[in-house]
């Protein structure tokens, strides 16, 4: 399959993604330095909060959105064995998103949008920031539309056939993103943009927070689904095995999409503007959405066990040693699952309705989400890049050993960085502070942990540089040798001959989501229109 256009699309998107990533890594390391107070001259809240805002936007919105779009185009084309529908439209989406990022970068870098990536009003940023973020989302909607069209075109051409799992997961993610980004899009279009342009004088912070919460948690699953897709469709093959269960994988993805949507209020547990009944409802949903992760962990580990045994591993744990640890995809999935276990544990604590009060907005929270995001998800993005980059650029990977070293150092750095973060949270350190100026004995105990975080951050920064270096060397290698391998998707252990329609389509699930969303967000949003609420005027930062 020649797919020049698809390769170019994937490479362009992923290049933007990883450029954002490496810039954000430098900002991250600066932040742990500044926070520790080790170098006095670095102490500047203005620079710190501009840096935190930029780091968050680059990592959470730019790296993820571009990576997911690039990965999606290539996965769709190769798993369906059909070219991307309307590539010129795909390039338009790419252009829109990139323009949005550049537009938002102007105020971010000049310190005119230090509102952090959660941009909670009534602190107001420059309108370019909100416009840019909105354009990034609009550009990604083009990708969603192309994925959905390709999914249904293929289904029409292949009636009764199971849609390839890779495409099923990718389309699920596109639909999830359409559903969830609607919240922040409504907030931007109806509240933030008119307000930042001066068309309206005031904004309702309660409504803004509720709309943001609509997007705030499912967005995490938008980032995570490509990692899970790699778990299911790449890992078993790379390990020399079969996917343990194709059907259960589909069910897990569906449960993930349906239940990830109406759970955003667990971010509002400590907020006064929503009543406790809604918070409990969303809290229960949060626990249900752990199910697909439990199931995914089982399926992936089972697939790995088969691989280990096929390679001669014996006994209860012997198969672990005989796995191909020198394969980047296999190593990455093992490290990724380890971080998911610890990150997931922290998440269950956060989600626990009343326990949340102890850790809410403390350093515990970034400790938790860095494990899930930079640990579980991004380490799989690395592995996907190591796997796809040679295929996309038709040049062999510069060095497999260095790639393995990069994955290990990322894992070690992440462990050293996030453990102190969790401890600091339990010791009451707030997140989002740039320095510790509290005249209190308690804060003395925070010091050693701050120093450990610098070390963890430095290891991660080196690892990130090595990653970018490896891709760069692969891309611009002078060798004449052409790398001719193609993407290989894992075969299920039991071939899927036919599927019930509810495991092969999203029509039913979209209806379920619509009802579920109307129930869980309908009244909580409408209340701001029938309550006697008071808006706030704009404040600088």
């Amino acid at each position: 399959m020649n797919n020049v256009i698809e390769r170019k699309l994937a490479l362009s998107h992923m290049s933007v993604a990883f450029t954002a990533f490496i810039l954000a890594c430098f900002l991250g390391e600066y932040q742990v330095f500044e926070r520790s107070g080790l170098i006095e001259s670095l102490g500047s809240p203005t620079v710190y909060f501009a840096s935190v805002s930029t780091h968050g936007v680059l990592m959470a919105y730019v790296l993820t959105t571009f990576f997911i779009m690039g990965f999606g185009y290539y996965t769709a084309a190769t798993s369906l064995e059909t070219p991307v529908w309307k590539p010129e439209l795909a390039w338009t989406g790419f252009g829109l998103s990139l323009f949005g990022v550049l537009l938002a970068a102007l105020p971010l870098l000049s310190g005119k949008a230090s509102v952090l990536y959660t941009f909670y009003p009534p602190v107001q940023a420059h309108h370019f920031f909100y416009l840019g973020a909105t354009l990034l989302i609009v550009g990604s909607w083009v990708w969603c539309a192309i994925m959905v069209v390709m999914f249904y075109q293929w289904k029409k051409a292949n009636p009764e056939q199971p849609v390839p799992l890779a495409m099923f997961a990718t389309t699920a993610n596109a639909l999830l993103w359409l559903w969830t980004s609607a919240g922040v899009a409504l907030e931007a279009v109806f509240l933030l943009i008119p307000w930042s342009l001066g068309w309206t004088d005031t904004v309702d912070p309660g409504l803004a927070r509720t709309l943001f919460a609509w997007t705030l948690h499912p967005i995490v699953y938008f980032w995570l689904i490509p990692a899970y897709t790699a778990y299911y469709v790449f890992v078993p093959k790379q390990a020399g095995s079969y996917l343990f269960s194709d059907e259960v994988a589909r069910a897990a993805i569906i449960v993930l999409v349906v239940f990830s949507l109406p759970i955003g209020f667990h971010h509002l547990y400590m907020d006064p503007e929503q009543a406790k009944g809604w918070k409990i409802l969303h809290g229960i949903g949060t626990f249900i959405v752990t199910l697909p992760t439990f199931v995914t962990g089982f399926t992936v580990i089972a697939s790995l066990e088969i691989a280990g045994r096929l390679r001669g591993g014996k006994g209860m744990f012997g198969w672990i040693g005989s796995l191909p640890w020198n394969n980047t995809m296999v190593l990455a999935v093992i490290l990724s699952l380890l971080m998911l276990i610890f990150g997931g544990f922290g998440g269950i604590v956060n989600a626990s309705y009343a326990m949340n009060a102890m850790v809410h907005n403390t350093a515990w929270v970034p400790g938790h989400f860095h494990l899930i995001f930079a640990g579980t998800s991004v380490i799989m993005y690395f592995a996907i890049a190591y796997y796809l980059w040679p295929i996309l650029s038709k040049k062999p990977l510069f060095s497999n050993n260095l790639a393995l070293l990069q994955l290990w150092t990322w894992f070690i750095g992440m462990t050293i960085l996030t453990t102190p973060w969790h401890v600091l949270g339990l010791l009451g350190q707030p997140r989002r502070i740039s320095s510790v100026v509290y005249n209190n004995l308690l804060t003395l105990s925070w010091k050693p942990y701050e120093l450990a975080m610098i070390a963890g951050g430095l290891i991660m920064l080196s690892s990130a540089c090595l990653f970018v270096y490896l891709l760069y060397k692969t891309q611009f290698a002078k060798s004449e040798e052409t790398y001719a391998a193609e993407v290989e998707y894992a075969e299920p252990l039991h071939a899927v001959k036919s599927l019930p329609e509810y495991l092969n389509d999203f029509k039913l699930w979209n209806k379920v989501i619509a009802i579920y969303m109307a129930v869980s967000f309908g009244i909580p949003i409408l209340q701001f229109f029938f309550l006697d609420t008071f808006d706030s005027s704009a404040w600088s930062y």
Partner: protein
Amino acid sequence: MHIDPLESKWIQTALGICGLFVGLILIDAFFHNIHTPSNVETIDSASLHLSEEFAEDNLGVHRDENGNIIVRMVAGRYSFFPKEISVPAETKLTFRWVSIDVLHGVHIPMTNMSTMVVPGFVAELETTFPKPGDYPVLCNEYCGLGHDHMWSKINVVERDQWHATQQPSSGAIDNE
């Protein structure tokens, strides 16, 4: 459709784990009345100083006519008002927090006194501090460039010592 028997056992186990956690939370919520701060009470942040409840001499620690201790606090960039308060240990306290400007969050480390202070809303919560001591009161939501400097102090004293140290002016009774 094929589901391995081992897999279906695992799915049941996972369901059991989730059910256990949800069950514990619901028991705490409905039998022990442990809830999040969720009173959905609106207030105009721009005119707090003119409101009866949050007028200047009503802030701080007060006892209402039923003997309940109410602590009224205002958050504004970059401090909590009043700057320093004293409350009894092992006593039920009702905190009522409001913001005069932007979003703040307040947390007293090593306790469960934690709430977001959203402009336009009164955040109310009940808590009890088991141990006497000096605790910092920290803003934990980014509220502007001076955010790091936003903190105050709370002094938790032994229950039987508290009345002695109480200011006479704080004995004012509210008409709620």
